[in-house]
């Protein structure tokens, strides 16, 4: 009895779900949330006569879990740079044909031959994020380095990112090591630093820290520059600094999934994204740093010279790109993160 009901309702539902069918080619794009201008997709649909389904995610792992099986239904995804190699190793990516991407020349030179994919055979850089310190200008003196986050005057009024790579990375930088360190001694040193800092912490927060900073609950926060920019947009008394010891940088890239049945159309979309006007619109909406040199030229001056998103060359030089870590190190870091959290 109930089997009949089940079958008929299942059929009804699938019928419902499939009833919106039109003949235009479909492209399914999976991107970070709030990472594109609202008119980019409609413009693309109009120019190429395609129909786009746009889904979003909040973390690389979420995206990975969905596409790992090879039949998720998505055509394009935007992993952070250090995820590209794992995806490639798991045969998830389709090769990028550079001849189909005439706009590739618009990329900034430093992103034209990135570490994770020197010939851009598998990915195309999109935007860049970095981590630093956001603070309330009331603080005197203003924070300038990671070591300032260990200052007792901030007790209970500051947060660090709830992200193992970022927080352990900050501790490593404070000790003068690389954010990609694999030496256990260095990592244990970082752990000691983090545990030392924990009593001063209010919490480990990501985006929530922005609201707390704006409302005055906290005075300083370990924050990504895009989030900090959002905070600064809503409150003039917030500032941002790239710490003196150095900081982690996360470019993310656009990839085509191997399961995609519309690879040519996917290439068209990537090429479309590389158009300076489109890239500029995306960067403006998402309040991020674009990897597109052509776009940078046409950004409005107050955005283009924004020191949080487009810092000067000396600051850029201090940044360090996050790389994929080997499993043994990953496991050690994860263990250390658990120990820090449980302390």
């Amino acid at each position, binding site marked *: 009895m109930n*089997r009949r009901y089940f079958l008929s309702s299942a059929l009804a539902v699938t019928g419902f779900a499939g009833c919106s069918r039109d003949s235009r080619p479909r492209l399914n794009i999976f991107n970070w949330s709030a990472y594109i201008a609202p008119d980019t997709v409609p413009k693309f649909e109009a120019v190429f006569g395609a129909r786009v389904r746009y889904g979003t995610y909040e973390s690389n792992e979420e995206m990975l879990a969905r596409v790992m099986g090879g039949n998720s239904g998505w055509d394009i995804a935007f992993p952070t740079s250090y995820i590209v190699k794992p995806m490639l190793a798991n045969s998830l990516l389709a090769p990028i044909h550079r001849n189909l991407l005439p706009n590739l020349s618009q990329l900034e030179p430093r992103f034209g031959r990135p570490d994770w994919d020197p010939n851009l055979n598998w990915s195309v850089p999109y935007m860049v994020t970095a981590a630093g310190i956001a603070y309330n200008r009331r603080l005197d003196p203003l924070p300038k380095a990671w070591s300032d986050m260990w200052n007792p005057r901030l007790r*209970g009024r500051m947060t660090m990112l709830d992200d193992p790579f970022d927080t352990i990375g900050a501790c490593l930088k404070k000790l003068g090591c690389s954010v990609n360190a694999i030496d256990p001694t260095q990592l244990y040193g970082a752990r000691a630093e983090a545990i030392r800092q924990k009593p001063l912490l209010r919490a480990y927060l990501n985006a929530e820290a922005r609201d707390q900073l704006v409302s005055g609950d906290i005075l300083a926060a370990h924050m990504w520059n895009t989030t900090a920019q959002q905070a600064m947009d809503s409150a003039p008394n917030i500032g941002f600094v790239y710490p003196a010891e150095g900081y982690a940088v996360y470019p993310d890239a656009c990839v085509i999934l191997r399961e995609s049945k519309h690879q040519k159309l996917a290439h068209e979309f990537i090429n479309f994204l590389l158009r300076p006007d489109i890239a500029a619109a995306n960067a403006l909406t998402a309040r991020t740093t674009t990897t597109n040199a052509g776009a940078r030229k046409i950004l409005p001056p107050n955005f283009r010279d924004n020191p949080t998103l487009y810092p000067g060359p000396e600051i850029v030089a201090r940044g360090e790109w996050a790389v994929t870590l080997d499993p043994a190190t990953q496991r050690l870091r994860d263990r250390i993160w*658990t120990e820090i959290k449980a302390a």
Partner: protein
Amino acid sequence: MNRLRAWFLAPSWIVIVILFLTPLAIILGYSFLTRGVYGGITSPWTVESYQRLVDPIYLAILWRSFWIAGVSTALCLLLGFPLALFISRAGRHKNFYLGLVMLPFWTSFLVRTYAWMFLLRDTGLLNTVLEKLGLIRSPLPLLYNDGAVILGLVYGYLPFTVLPLYATLERLDRTLLEAAADLGAKPWATLAHITIPLSSPGIRAGAILVFIPCLGAYLTPDLLGGGKSVMIGNLIQNQFTTARDWPFGSAVSLVLMAIVMLLLFVIARGEGESLL
């Protein structure tokens, strides 16, 4: 008698075997495999994940989780019982009140948790009101500690006690209560000696329905606890996401599940009844 029963049980068996036991078997397999180079699963088969578990830090995490879940469950029962009692006595408007209780719980769990954060923050509603009333000088640290986590858990899982309790209380024979009253028992005594024991199936159901999810909770400790402490749910969550160590995550979950099942079994044996 057995034929009908077999038909009745068949659909559940089908669903459980296909949609639960088989996937679980896959997880069991995962726990004995190795983490792939960049996440995922590869051979060789190994018990390494389980060996890693034998470590005081994980025991501490387990203990904490049990403690927090236990307190939350107790509070849920304490709060849920009067509520369920009230609804079961409500006569014609029973379903209406039931719906009313459930109503806030159809908004997203996440939103309600955020609402709590909004209330408990230093500049949040509660502190602002208390300060305006002159009761406190500086804001109370209401958020980002165990208390906030328990509050969030209790708030989130209250209907899981109200509903089963209501299901049993509604059935309660009023004449028993009347008889007790006639015999001179005070309301409290009636409550303690008649109502509560007779609703024990509901209490048991409610306790289980709250304790177990609380054990595996990760969103609430993360958001309301400020990520400063690790519950076993956070640990497992972390393994399947950031750490991308599925074998270890599977091993931890299976061990957790085994411990809880053992506990349930012992409790059931102790009461001389079967699990359900």
